[in-house]
Structure formats: structure tokens, C-alpha cells
């Protein structure tokens, strides 16, 4: 990976074909593409079988489980899984399985549980990427929101039997086709080799590069993981291995470079709170 020490992230950089960075499609050969395509199609088939099975018969649901298992194995078989990444892939698989369970579940309670599984697993993935603060915040927000929504589900749907709209789905086959097309498109566009514009460093936001003095960021330099000090700037090779995982760095960036964004987000939250209170009021008491 080549880092270009140029300062035009937000500038109008002229498009220069010689400047393009080539992204090699190293292991994404034909076999892999076919396998991923198969996995995706099988996953969609699994979804279809499951949602039919939930309504119609248990055998279809069991077939769905089987197909999903095949799809998962097919997908994982061609992902280079060194031992460090096993947990990551487990989280990924769990997230996908939870999402699938969420969208096929017949009962709202089960759906909410599936959703929680998916989100928590996604948080695990984030955690594995050393985005500790984001992972924690996501757990807090989504868990809180999930719990509240779960309560709403229970409150609204105090049902002795299922409502039809909990069970019946709107055109699941068409939705599966659209989703499949989307996933294939995404996979294709990320997996194929190609050229991207080279990385650009925005020196006007130094704190977002905290801990990377070699790139012109961080003043004063902060001791970070790996004990790289400002006195000994990182070589490009070290920087390539460097992971900006420090929560302190994130906080410094947030409250310095992105202070305006944070303030605006807070304002939006306040407005949303007020709006939610107004919206949820009873119409009879407050005609406005």
C-alpha cells in the first residue's frame, strides 16, 4: 500500500491516469468468484425456503437451514482464514445468520432477538477492527433502542395469536432477487481488480491523523500503541502496519477537527427529542 504525502483530499485534484493506484485482484480468481456467487445465490435460496417454511411446513424450513449451512461453508471455504481471523469470520457469520433469522421470524419477539444477534455480532466485528469506542457506542445505543422497541412490540402486540401482518410477507421472491442483485453487485465491485485514486492525506485536519507524525499529523504527538514517539517518526513500512485504534485519538479528533459536526449532531438529537415528544402526544389533548 502506497501512501502519497499530498495535501489535496478536499481539493480539486486533476485526474491523472499515471497517478492511479492499482488494486490487485490477488486471490479473487474465477474459482473464488464462482464460489461467492454460489454462496450468495444459495443464501437467497435459503432465505426463500425459510420464509416459506415458517408459514407452510417445517420440512421447507429444515431445507432452508441446510441450504444456509452449505452457503456459509461455501463462502468461508474460499476466504483465507488464518487463525487470527477465525473469530472475525465467526462474528460475521453470526451477524448474517441473525439478520436472516430476523427477517424470516414469524413472531415479533423472535425477530427482535434475531435483530439483536445481528447487531451485537456486527459490533463484535467492529471490535475486532479495534474500533472500540464505536463498537461500545453501538452496543449501548442499539441495545437500548432494541430493548425499547422490544418493549413496544410487547406492548402493542399483546396478542394471544399472531396477526396476519406478522406472518405474511410482501413479495419475498422479488425482494430476494433484488437483494441478491445488490450483493452480487457489491461483491463484484469490491472483489474485482481495478484502479483507485491514491490515498490523500488531509493535513488541515491533523488530529484525525493523530499518532501518525510521519504523515504530518498529530501535534503534539501522542504516544500510541507500539511506542512510536514523535522523536522517532514511523517509517512508511511501520505506518502501513499501524492501526489507529486509540480511543483517545478518536476523542481528540472528534472534539477538535470535527467539533462542528459533533455540535450539529447534538442539536439534531435535541430537535429529534422534542419532535418525538410532540409527535407522540395524544391528538385529543393537543389538537396541534
Amino acid at each position, binding site marked *: 500500500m502506497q501512501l502519497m504525502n499530498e495535501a489535496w483530499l478536499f481539493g480539486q485534484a486533476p485526474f491523472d491516469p499515471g497517478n492511479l493506484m492499482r488494486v490487485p485482484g490477488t486471490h479473487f480468481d474465477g474459482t473464488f468468484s464462482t464460489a461467492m456467487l454460489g454462496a450468495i445465490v444459495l443464501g437467497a435460496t435459503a432465505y426463500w425456503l425459510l420464509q416459506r417454511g415458517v408459514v407452510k411446513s417445517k420440512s421447507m424450513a429444515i431445507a432452508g437451514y441446510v441450504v444456509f449451512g452449505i452457503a456459509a461453508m461455501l463462502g468461508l471455504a474460499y476466504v483465507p482464514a488464518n487463525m487470527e481471523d477465525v473469530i472475525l469470520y465467526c462474528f460475521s457469520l453470526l451477524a448474517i445468520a441473525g439478520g436472516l433469522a430476523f427477517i424470516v421470524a414469524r413472531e415479533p419477539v423472535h425477530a427482535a432477538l434475531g*435483530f439483536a444477534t445481528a447487531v451485537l455480532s456486527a459490533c463484535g466485528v467492529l471490535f475486532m477492527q479495534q474500533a472500540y469506542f464505536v463498537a461500545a457506542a453501538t452496543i449501548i445505543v442499539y441495545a437500548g433502542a432494541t430493548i425499547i422497541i422490544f418493549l*413496544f412490540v410487547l406492548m402493542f402486540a399483546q396478542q394471544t395469536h399472531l396477526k*396476519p401482518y406478522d406472518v405474511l*410477507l410482501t413479495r419475498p421472491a422479488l425482494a430476494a432477487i433484488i437483494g441478491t442483485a445488490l450483493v452480487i453487485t457489491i461483491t463484484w465491485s469490491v472483489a474485482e481488480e481495478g484502479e483507485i485514486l491514491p490515498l490523500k492525506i488531509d493535513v488541515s485536519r491533523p488530529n484525525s491523523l493523530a499518532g501518525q507524525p510521519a504523515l504530518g499529523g498529530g501535534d503534539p504527538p501522542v504516544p500510541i500503541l507500539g511506542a512510536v514517539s514523535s522523536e522517532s517518526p514511523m517509517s512508511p513500512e511501520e505506518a502501513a502496519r499501524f492501526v489507529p485504534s486509540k480511543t483517545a485519538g478518536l476523542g481528540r479528533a472528534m472534539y477538535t477537527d470535527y467539533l462542528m459536526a459533533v455540535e450539529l449532531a447534538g442539536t439534531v438529537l435535541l430537535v429529534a427529542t422534542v419532535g418525538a415528544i410532540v409527535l407522540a402526544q395524544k391528538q385529543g389533548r393537543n389538537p396541534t
Partner: protein
Amino acid sequence: MSIIDTQNLLILGGVLFAIGLVGFLTRRSMILMFLSLETMLSGVSVNLIAFSKLHMNYQGQILAIMVLAIAACEAALALALIVSLYRRKATLDVEAWDELSEVVSPKAPDIPVDFGGAEPSFPKLTPAGLDPISNPVPSTLDTVIKNQSWSAGSNTSEASSRA
């Protein structure tokens, strides 16, 4: 962090996003549609974190935090809307809301109540105590019950003060 990991994470984010999309398209309960939206947002968060990792700066994480903030706002407003909508028609079905349809457009299909398959089974709890309707409280026992200390916490203090 290799670009291959990034690519895998991007695929994961895309799959999560697609699952949320499919859920949003197919589910008819408004709350579950809302949860589908949240799933899509979590897919986007994965995406952002992957790029943050790839680019070795905090911009992606900060964007993910912004997504979280907006998602919280959205959750608040969506729930408020769901509450007020539920008050109108006492249903969570989105198909129930088609007042803005054109005259010639097909009506919402009648929802079959019998959806086949196994009826959901709910846990049956053993009934405890007496049914107050079939077993009304005898008037002779009225004063006895009122003086009972187990009837309510506040009653206990009142009773003791009266005594």
C-alpha cells in the same frame, strides 16, 4: 490490515445492508420495518469502520458515530410516529395506510386470516387465585379483607394509623 480483509468486511457490510433491505421490503409490521432500517445502518457502520482501518485515520469512525447519532434520532421519531399511527387504527400493518392511493390503483389485498401451518403455541400458566367475576367477594368477608394486612402496602399504613 490488508486490503483483502477490507474487501471481506465490505462484503459483510453489503450483505448486512441487503438483509436489511429485504427485511424492509418484505416485512409488514412497522416496528420490524424500522428494525430493518437499523440493520441497514449497521451494515453501513461496518463499511465505514473498514475504510477507517484501511486509511488509518479516524474519519471513518467519526462518520460511524454520526450515523449512530442520526440513527438514534431516527429511532425516536420513528417510534413516535408508530405510536401515533397505532392510535389511529390499532394496527401495525403498513398496508392499512393507503389513503393517498389513486382511485384506479388496486386496493390492498384482503389479508387471509388463516395462514396455515402450525398455530403458535404460547406457554400456559397454571391459574392462581380465584376469578373475581365467577367468584365475587362475599359481603360478609368485606371487612375482613379490608383489615387484612396483605391487601396493599399503603393500606397497611392507613389501617395501622386508624387503629
